[in-house]
């Protein structure tokens, strides 16, 4: 069970940036779609503020998403390893 879980994590972590990048290049997210829906429902509305900072390219955006994933996976992996070792010591 645990081995299986770690393998899944590892595969996710390695493949994610590439998956993300290809996904982002080809699809528009629901967030973008909701924006075009807002424009359709309320044509006169203009956004009153822009993002302070935006990733300069699709690639750097994908990498930042991957960073977010990596932070999360890292913490979960630490927890799994820690718990596993703990259990082994007790046993």
């Amino acid at each position, binding site marked *: 069970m645990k081995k299986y879980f770690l393998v899944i994590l590892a595969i996710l972590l390695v493949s994610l940036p590439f998956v993300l990048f290809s*996904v982002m290049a080809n*699809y*528009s997210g629901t*967030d973008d779609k909701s924006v075009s829906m807002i424009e359709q429902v*309320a044509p006169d509305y203009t956004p009153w503020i822009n993002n302070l900072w935006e*990733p300069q390219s699709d690639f750097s955006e994908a990498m930042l*998403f991957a960073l977010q994933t990596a932070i*999360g996976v890292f913490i979960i992996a630490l927890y*799994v390893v820690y718990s596993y070792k703990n259990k082994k010591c007790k046993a």
Partner: protein
Amino acid sequence: MYRFIIIAIAVLLPTQLFGMHIAEGYLPAQWAIGWAAMFLPFLFFGVRKIKSISEKEPKAKMLFAVVGAFVFVLSSIKLPSLGGSSSHLTGIALGAILFGASSMSIIGLIVLLFQALLLAHGGITTLGANAFSMAVVGSVVAIIVYRTLKNAKISSNVSVFITAFVSDIAIYMCTSAQLALAFQSSEASFGSNFLKFISVFAITQIPLAIIEGLLTVLIFNLIIKYNSNEIAIINPSLKV
């Protein structure tokens, strides 16, 4: 800790006010402020709750980090879904079941800030509305569903799966409602707006909610396996 969060919010609020999945600038100011005001009490109780829990059980901090990391991972996974669009998961239900609804407001805020500032995904002005739908509605729905299922003696795996699924869908229904409310006009009623927005979110979200359910079951079982004693102290009313 919570002083820092409150100062951070106080500094950030006047400059921008958009939240989770509603893009920056796409919520009129009065709505942005209103949703932020509704979110703040939950954040306040969440910080207090986490403080008292971690005094009772030191390992709670570690488990809270795991629950937060789970939200980090899931909300960063963008998957292609129906209709050629991509969308992502939320991972809120796990923490809501284990730690209670208010605690998730802290994690929701951190994740949304990260995405708003680094990824231009969501925004600071929409932060209140997005945090409200993700962290408040998502986790309150999760707790209600989970308790109902457990009281009906449904097995733990099935309960967790359905809880995560329903919570994910509820978040997107809430976002749709928020947008529909903000953009009501004589030509565009709340009802017709809501249907339009829900058609953007909910349908693409169904396959993702299934994935979310499966991942949540996986990690829920992992935490219960290693830390059932700690969870019993953190959340005594939890039925596993």
